[in-house]
């Protein structure tokens, strides 16, 4: 099975759209500070792009985005978020206390970047996890 | 170290057999001589420890051990008082004899799973001594439950479907009893705020008659099951499916007596005789006990199976003690306390004999015993002594206790119970003595030659027989059972008796 829908049109359009969606998704993630949006929404968009890839390209998409990649990205995203939380603990702060994460920077600046990284990590994590769920569902419960 | 052991003798007495159980279990079937020496060692040690406390207790000393707090304000505590040591002394002494007897019995019968048997027997003894020395109700309940559970493997020892069925019945009765006890204990703790036994009782009439009755009903179920008070006795005759040493020790001495002892604690140390009389609970208890005495004796008459007959006899005689306690008269109480000992000695003799006959000849039924006295004269003589003792013939222990019971009944003005005692004495004679006459004066259908059971069994039988007689002739010799009984009555009611009869 190469694709669920043997359609050249779908194939071409999807391939063209995926990068656009991804770019927009990154925009949504990184602009969570200023406008509605953020890690969750952007992550969902990223996932949607991969799902589009899966739908349009079928098994070929596993070469671009392997089956394992979803959960690995999710795991690393969450792990990075956790480490972000632990980072300030190293400097004597509380968990997720961005203001203490790096000595020598002003607190609001640090929080800004803390939020930024948190959003990015969340974006990756949501991306990976949702793709993983999709991949799992796509097997249809093979035993 | 030695001081520590001496100070905590009550605890050591309990632990000795628990340790023996572990040792027995670890030694296993292959080294059976070593295994059995553990049992003997523990039995001797236990008896020695208990016996060493007798003079002190008589002199007014109370050996106390506080183990640990088990619930806020409640300690797991031991205290040796006359009532406790009376029971503990008889149980631990008879354990020695039972041990030897059991070796003979189990080997003679080639029983399976002897290790399990001896280990649980030792645990039962631990629990029994724990019951004796409990200083408060919670400790009492704890050991009581352990005893209930530890008896179960002995009851199902035979491993037949019937044994399991009876085991289930036993468990239901025992657990019900245990739960009832817990309920009663909770009620007391809630109302009185304390559970410590006090000679003369610690409950007050102000707690309300309804509550006191509820407590009484709970405890009646709790102890009544073990003590075989009708109508909640039916597990007891069935449980005779256990090997005879178990029947002997547990169903004549330890387990059932634990129930009876519970009644002693209940009337003498929890409610107190005055309160029992005031709320009328004593009368109810006495009626149940009296009814049980008569009914059980009649049922015993109809039983052909020797052990079943003895079982019903046990049911009846346990109620003698309950009745003695329930009459509330000092003399009756004295009789009851002493009957705990004498009945133990006599009934264990009878059970030993029954077991010896069964193992040696395979005969279980009374109707098969014609002429067996010529084959096993010593055994049957001992049986005869026990039988006449239970019937209340002088010079055997039973006479003295019955005498005091009767005197107490007169004292209490309850002449109907005097009648019950007399009738049941006759019935006792009617269902036990024919066995003896049958054994000696009827001709056996088979060829008979003198052929006693092994020494491991006959010697204990002889010793218990001697003990029964000794209790009738010198009731206060060596073990000071009579003095202890008097001490119980004195501490509970304040009445002291001058001289011995």
């Amino acid at each position, binding site marked *: 099975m190469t694709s669920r829908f043997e359609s050249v049109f779908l194939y071409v359009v999807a391939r063209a759209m995926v990068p656009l969606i991804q770019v927009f998704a990154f925009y949504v993630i990184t602009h969570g500070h200023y406008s509605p949006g953020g890690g969750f929404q952007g992550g969902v968009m990223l996932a949607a792009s991969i799902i589009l890839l899966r739908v349009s390209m079928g098994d070929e998409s596993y070469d671009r985005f392997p089956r394992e990649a979803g959960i690995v990205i999710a795991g690393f995203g969450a792990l990075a978020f956790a480490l972000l939380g632990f980072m300030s603990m190293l400097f004597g702060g509380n968990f997720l206390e961005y203001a203490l994460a790096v000595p020598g920077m002003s607190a609001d600046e640090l929080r800004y970047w803390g939020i930024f990284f948190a959003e990015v990590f969340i974006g990756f994590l949501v991306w990976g996890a949702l793709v993983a769920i999709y991949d799992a569902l796509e097997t249809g419960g093979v035993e | 170290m030695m001081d520590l052991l001496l100070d905590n003798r009550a605890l050591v007495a309990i632990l000795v057999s628990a340790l023996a159980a572990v040792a027995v279990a670890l030694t296993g079937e292959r080294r059976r001589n070593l295994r059995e020496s553990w049992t003997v060692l523990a039995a001797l040690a236990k008896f020695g420890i208990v016996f060493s406390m007798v003079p002190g207790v008589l002199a007014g000393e109370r050996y106390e051990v506080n183990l*640990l707090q088990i*619930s806020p304000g409640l300690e797991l505590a031991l205290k040796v008082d006359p009532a406790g040591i009376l029971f503990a002394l008889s149980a631990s002494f008879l354990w020695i004899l039972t041990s030897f007897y059991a070796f003979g019995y189990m080997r003679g019968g080639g029983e399976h799973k002897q290790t399990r048997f001896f280990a649980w027997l030792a645990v039962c003894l631990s629990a029994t001594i724990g019951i004796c020395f409990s200083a408060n109700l919670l400790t009492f309940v704890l050991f009581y439950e352990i005893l209930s559970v530890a008896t179960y*493997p002995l009851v199902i020892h035979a*491993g037949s479907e019937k044994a399991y069925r009876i085991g289930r019945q036993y468990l239901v009765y025992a657990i019900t009893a245990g739960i009832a006890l817990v309920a009663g204990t909770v009620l007391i703790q809630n109302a009185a705020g304390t559970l410590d036994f006090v000679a003369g009782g610690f409950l007050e009439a102000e707690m309300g008659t309804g509550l006191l009755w509820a407590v009484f009903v709970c405890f009646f179920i709790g102890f009544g099951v073990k003590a075989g008070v009708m109508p909640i006795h039916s597990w007891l005759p069935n449980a005779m499916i256990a090997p005879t040493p178990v029947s002997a020790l547990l169903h004549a001495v330890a387990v059932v007596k634990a129930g009876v002892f519970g009644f002693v604690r209940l009337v003498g140390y929890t409610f107190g005789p005055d309160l029992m009389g005031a709320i009328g609970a004593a009368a109810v208890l006495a009626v149940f006990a009296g009814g049980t005495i008569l009914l059980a004796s009649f049922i015993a008459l109809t039983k052909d199976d020797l052990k079943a007959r003895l079982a019903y006899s046990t049911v009846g005689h346990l109620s003698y003690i309950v009745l003695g306690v329930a009459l509330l008269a000092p003399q009756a109480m004295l009789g009851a306390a002493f009957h705990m000992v004498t009945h133990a000695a006599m009934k264990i003799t009878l059970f030993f004999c029954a077991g010896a006959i069964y193992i040696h000849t395979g005969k279980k039924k009374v109707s098969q015993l014609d002429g067996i006295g010529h084959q096993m004269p010593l055994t049957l003589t001992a049986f005869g002594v026990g039988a006449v003792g239970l019937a209340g013939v002088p010079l055997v222990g039973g006479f003295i206790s019955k005498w005091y019971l009767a005197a107490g009944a007169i004292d209490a003005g309850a002449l109907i119970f005097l009648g019950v005692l007399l009738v049941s004495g006759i019935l006792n004679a009617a269902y036990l003595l024919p066995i003896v006459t049958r054994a000696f004066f009827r001709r056996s259908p088979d060829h008979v030659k003198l052929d006693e059971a092994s020494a491991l069994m006959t010697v204990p039988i002889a010793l218990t027989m001697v003990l029964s007689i000794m209790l009738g002739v010198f009731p206060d010799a060596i073990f000071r059972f009579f003095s202890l009984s008097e001490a119980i009555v004195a501490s509970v009611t304040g009445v002291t008796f001058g001289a011995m009869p």
Partner: protein
Amino acid sequence: MSQIPALIPTSLLLASLVALLVGLKSHRAAHLIALAGAVFAFVCSILGLQAVIQGDGEAIRYAMGAWVPPIGIEFVLDSLAAYMVTLITFIGVMVLIYAPRSLALETPGRQGMVYPSMTLVLAGLVGMCLTGDVFNLYVFLEIAALAAYALLAIGDRGAPVATLRYLLFGAVGGGFYLLGVAYLYFAAGTVNMADLSMRLPELMESRAVIVAAVLMVVGLGVKMALFPFHLWLPDVYTNAPSVSAGLIAPIMTKVSAYAIIRLFLDVFPPGFFTESLPIATTIGWVSAAGILFGSVLAVAQHDYRRMLAYSSVGQLGYIGLGIGLANPLGMIGGLLHILNHALMKGLLFMIGGAVRLRFGTTKIPEYVGVGRAMPWTMVAFTVGVLAMVGIPPTAGFFSKWYLLLGAADAGAWIWFAVIIASSLLSAIYFFRVVEMIYRDPETDSAVADHEPREAGEAPASMFWPITIMATAVMAVGIFNVLIVSALLERVVAPLGG
């Protein structure tokens, strides 16, 4: 030291994330990491427990991100939380040690994913216990629930069906709880527990608060499998792998019960659950019904796990009764039963798994001769049974003891009778199994048609957790007074007396 409240859940979360990544390659490494995380969390909980006891029950408060509550999320390690957290991490460590062999048998090829799920369950439950924020509690509730669904669904053939039912029940429960949080927030303007407890007394008459309380308690009640909502429980535990059941049955439902107790004692004003609204009493009555229902049905079961599941329905009722009594002794009984039942049920499920590993059966009639084949495991089993029945001095006796005292104190004689009756019932259904395992096909005429069991003690990695749990059951019983006086009496202080 001050980081402990945060370290306990986060270390578990970290461990599960790392184990998840590592587990893709090697389930062994995942196991070791999960175990290390659990042990670390356990050590932290012990330290926290010690700190709380030494601090005379003074709570250790921890502001996440250093945002003082109510702005940020607060973690509170007080006596009750420390008690629960220690219990959860202890069970977690035990089950994790126990897990590998059982998983190799029951869920081949998926172990690498199971360990992170197990730590996630632990992390979620620990978070629920520690958090001081009603919404954060919801988040952790769902973490635990989601991981638990997966753990339960990979069992026997019927497991997915049972788990889906659980999931639907859980979603309803979670939704109710969330809606309750919404009412509470709109009525009081905060989701911080300490803050709420200051603002709610003046809102006691507010209908919104009443609805919030009812919704939250019903939601948690569904998760706790309180009587009418217990329907999901038996099938789930019956079909779950032994490891999952051993992890989830002891603690998952208890933590929901804990959350109800937390709401009762610390969030809503004193008397709100007892006088303004008869919530506590209602919980008590349905629990009483649940006790009888669960015990009676347990008697009729032939599958070991199903029997334990119904027994759980009954035993959870004891905790509910503790809440329902709403007096110090009763509540102590309920809280102590959380600990006792967790230890006992964990022990029994683990033993079920060990028997399954050796003899491939979970049917009680096929347990014949197991006592001979795995003697020490069965000694532990007997200890567990004695505790379930409530024979002193095992742990089970004392929770019943306090509950009975509490019931007598409150004059709740029907509940008193229910506790007594259910003890008897549990004796009936548990001793049935004891009788079965100690029958011996070789010498027992009654069961001679059964094949003799080959000797086969549980493997060491399963045997030692079982032994430790059995010891703990005994130890908690004998030394319960330490727990009661050091922790629980402080917890129930708001109830007066």
